[in-house]
């Protein structure tokens, strides 16, 4: 099984371009498409690109996907994807929305404890940055 991907191929660039277009698409449905298709991909690089796109949109529903959902964004089973998403959150210029989503996740008892724990860690990092 191949664990690395050639990021110079035409197909990879095509996927990257589509995800980039959904990042800047003003339609809120773009978040749904990213969540349904991108975050459920079996390819780590695709999930990573999708998580970054959702963070860059910097909207409550897009941030909620990468913070509050199990197996996505900061909660991804791939360490690379999770760390990349955290880095993207830390590099946001406007962190207000992200902090709100993190607080809501931490305070929501309906969410799994490990997800809330991750949210607490990310919040601590963001407070320090």
């Amino acid at each position, binding site marked *: *099984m*191949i664990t690395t*991907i*050639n990021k110079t*191929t035409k*197909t*990879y*660039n*095509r*996927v990257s*371009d*589509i*995800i*980039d*277009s*959904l990042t*800047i*698409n*003003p*339609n809120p*449905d*773009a978040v*749904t*498409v990213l969540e*349904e*298709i*991108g975050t459920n*991909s*079996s*390819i780590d690089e*695709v999930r990573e690109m999708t998580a970054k796109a959702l963070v860059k949109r910097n909207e409550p529903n897009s941030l909620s996907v990468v913070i509050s959902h199990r197996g996505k964004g900061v909660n991804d089973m791939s360490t690379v994807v999770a760390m990349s998403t955290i880095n993207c959150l830390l590099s946001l210029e406007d962190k207000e929305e992200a902090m709100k989503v993190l607080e809501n996740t931490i305070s929501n008892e309906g969410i799994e404890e490990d997800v809330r724990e991750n949210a607490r860690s990310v919040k601590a990092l963001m407070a320090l940055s």
Partner: protein
Amino acid sequence: MSTIERVSQWSHRIFNTTTNEQNVRRSSNPFAQSNFQKNILMEDVFESSKKDVSFTGGISQGTKRIYSTFVGSINDFGKKFYDGIESIKEFGLRMKDGIVGALNKIREIGNTEIHLGEGLKNGYNAVKSVLATDMGKFFNTREKQVAAMAKLDPHTQVKPLLSNAIKALEEELTVAA
């Protein structure tokens, strides 16, 4: 005006074309700056010291003075003539230098091998490269494609595109494996 003065003026008119020529040094003749620059020689210059041998015969003193003036002029003419030759020689040398320089220039131009077809080809290539660079800068197709896709409907238009692209990428990975 005396005859001597007239002859002097006459010879001066013949052999002195311009007064400026006196100031222009045209030769390395050591006698150029000698006393013979004057048009009039001393009247007894050609008189023999031996009194028994006389070429003058019955020539009077006045006639002798005229002749001496004329001879002085002739002497001066010799200098002028020499200077003239020198001028011609220098002119010739300058011309030669000029022609040699011109020939060298022509040779240099010839060595560059300028051909019309080649020049046009080079010009075309230069314009092509400039245009290619600018086209890359101003018409980035990838950015244009992304901007165009961002205007599409996510569910009906972009979702199928993304699904197909990810599927193609997965197939690529499977083939590579």
